[in-house]
C-alpha cells in the first residue's frame, strides 16, 4: 500500500516554483531515499509534507493513508503519524534532553525513555539532564532529535540529511536507529546527497529543480553518484559534483 502519495505538487515562493508538478509514491514499510543536488527542493518537499508554516499553500495534493493533508497543521499531521527530523535540529534554552524526549514519547515511563537514548547510542545518565542547547555538538543534537523520533513511534518518518554534521562513529548510531524504526514498521524517507545514506534505502527518487527526474531501485539510482547521470531536461543542469557531494 502507498502510505504517502503526492500528486502534481507545486509550491512557489514569490512567483518562483520551488516544487513543480511533483509526483511520487511511498510504499508502506519500505525505506525510501530522495536524492538531489543542493537547492533541488529536498528540504522544501520535507517541509511541505510536514505542513510547516509557509509550506501549506500548495497546489496538487498530498495523501497520507488516502487522507488529503491540505489544510492540516503540523500537530494534526503528527497525530496521524507523520514526523520530520530537521536537517539542522532546533536548539532550545534550558530544555533538558530527557524532557525533550519524554515530550515526544508515546510511552512516558522511564524505561521507554532510556530505550530511546540507547537506540541512538546516547548514554542516558550522561545526557538526560543536559540542555538541548548550543552546548551540544551538531552530531549530539542530531542523535537526540532521532531519539525523540524513535520515542514517538511514528508511522512515517522523514529524515532530512540524517548524516549532516555527523562523524563516522555516530553515523553507525544513526543507521542503527533507522534500522530500528524500520523494524518497528515505520516507513522512512531519507533525504540525502550522500551515497552512504542512500545505501540504507531500498527505493529512491532523484529530485532536481523541484521535480522528480527518475525513480527506481537504489542499485539504479545510485548511478547518479557514479557520474552516469542522464541529461537533465531542465535549464539548471545540476552539477554532477553537486549530486555526488557528501559521498
Amino acid at each position, binding site marked *: 500500500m502507498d502510505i504517502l502519495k503526492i500528486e502534481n505538487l507545486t509550491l512557489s515562493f514569490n512567483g518562483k516554483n520551488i516544487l513543480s508538478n511533483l509526483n511520487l509514491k511511498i510504499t508502506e514499510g519500505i525505506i525510501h531515499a530522495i536524492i538531489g543536488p543542493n537547492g533541488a527542493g529536498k528540504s522544501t518537499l520535507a517541509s511541505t509534507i*510536514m505542513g*510547516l*508554516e509557509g509550506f501549506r499553500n500548495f497546489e496538487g495534493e498530498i495523501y497520507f493513508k488516502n487522507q488529503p493533508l491540505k489544510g492540516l*497543521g*503540523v*500537530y494534526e*499531521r*503528527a*497525530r496521524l503519524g*507523520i*514526523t*520530520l527530523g*530537521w536537517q539542522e*535540529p*532546533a*536548539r*532550545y*534554552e*534550558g*530544555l*533538558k534532553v530527557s*524532557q525533550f524526549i519524554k*515530550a*515526544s514519547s508515546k510511552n512516558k515511563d522511564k524505561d521507554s525513555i532510556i530505550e530511546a537514548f540507547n537506540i541512538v547510542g546516547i548514554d542516558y545518565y550522561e545526557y538526560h539532564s543536559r*540542555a538541548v542547547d548550543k552546548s551540544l555538538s551538531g552530531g549530539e543534537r542530531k542523535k537526540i*532529535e532521532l531519539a*525523540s*523520533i524513535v520515542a*514517538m513511534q511514528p508511522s512515517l518518518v522523514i529524515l532530512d540529511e540524517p548524516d549532516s554534521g555527523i562523524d563516522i562513529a555516530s553515523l553507525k548510531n544513526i543507521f542503527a536507529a533507522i534500522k530500528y524504526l524500520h523494524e518497528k514498521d515505520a516507513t522512512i524517507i531519507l533525504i540525502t546527497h550522500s551515497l552512504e545514506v542512500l545505501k540504507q534505502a531500498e527505493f529512491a527518487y532523484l529530485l532536481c529543480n523541484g521535480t522528480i527526474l527518475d525513480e527506481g531501485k537504489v542499485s539504479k539510482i545510485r548511478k547518479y553518484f557514479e557520474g552516469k547521470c542522464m541529461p537533465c531536461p531542465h535549464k539548471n543542469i545540476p552539477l554532477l559534483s553537486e549530486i555526488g557531494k557528501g559521498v
Partner: protein
Amino acid sequence: MEEDILYEAANLKDVIHDPTVARLVINKDKIVSSNIIKGMEIFPEEIKDGVKVKLVVKEGEIIEKPIHLCFGITEENAVQNIVIDADIEKNASVSLLAHCVFPLAKDILHKMDAKIHVGENAHYSYFEKHIHSKNGGVRVLPKTIVSLDSGARFKTEFELIKGRVGLIDIDIETKCLENSIMEVTSRINGTDEDKILIKETGYLIGENSRGVLTSRVALRDNAKAEIFNKIVATGAHSRGHVDCKEIVQDNAQASAIPIVEVKNSTAHVTHEASIGSVDSKQLETLMSRGLTEDAAVELIIQGLLS
C-alpha cells in the same frame, strides 16, 4: 498552625524540623520560627510592618546546608518590610534559600532592603523563590546593594514563576573588587496585567573582576516588562556579560536596555538581548512530535525559565 500554609506552599515541611538546618521564618511582621547553627549569627528585630535581620557568617566558617529563609504573609491584605544586613566574613561560605510566599494575596506590598557584604575570598549564594496567589494583588519591591571584597564570589537568583507576578520592581547593584565574581539571574513569568521592572547593575572595579547579568522573562496576555542591565568595567582585565532573553506572546510588551561601559582598555564586556515570540523551529519540532501548540509553547517557556 497558621504558618502551615507557608510551609506547604514553599515545600518546607521537612526542613522546618531539621535541627541541622538554620532557618528563619517570618509571617508578616512576626518571627514564627528560627534555628541558628554553629558558625553563624542572626539578630532579628521586629520593626513597623516588618522585620529587620542582621546575618553574620563568621570568618572561615563553611555552612554546609543552605540557610532557609521564609518571608510569608498568610493574610489577604498586608504590608511587609524586610530589612536585611548580611555580612559574610573573610573565607566564609554560605548559601541561602529564601521563599517569599503570599498564597492568599489580594493586596500585598512586600518591600525588601538588603545590604550584603561578602568578605575576602568568601562565598555567598542566594536563591529567592516567590510563590504568589493567582490574584495578582502583590507588589514586590526588592532593593539590594552588594559589595564584594577581593576574591569574593556572589551568586543570586530570583525566581517568580508560580502564581501571578502583580508588580515587581527589582533593583540590584553590585560592586566588585579585584578577582571577585558576581552572577545575577532573574527568571520571571508574567501573565494578565503583570508589570515587571528589572534593574541590574554591576560595577567591575577591581582587576580581574568578573560579572554576568542574566534575565529570562516570559510574557503573555497584557503583561509588560522593562529590563535595564548595566555593567561598568573600570578594573583592568575585568570581564562582563549581559544576557537578556524574553519571550513575548499575545499583547505583551517588553523592552531590554543593556548598557555596557568600558573605562579600561584591557577590560571586555559583551551583551546579547533577544525579545520575540517563541522560535518557530522549536515550536514546529515539538508539534511534529505530536504536541499541541499550547503544550509546545509551555515546554519551551518552562525551559527558558528553568
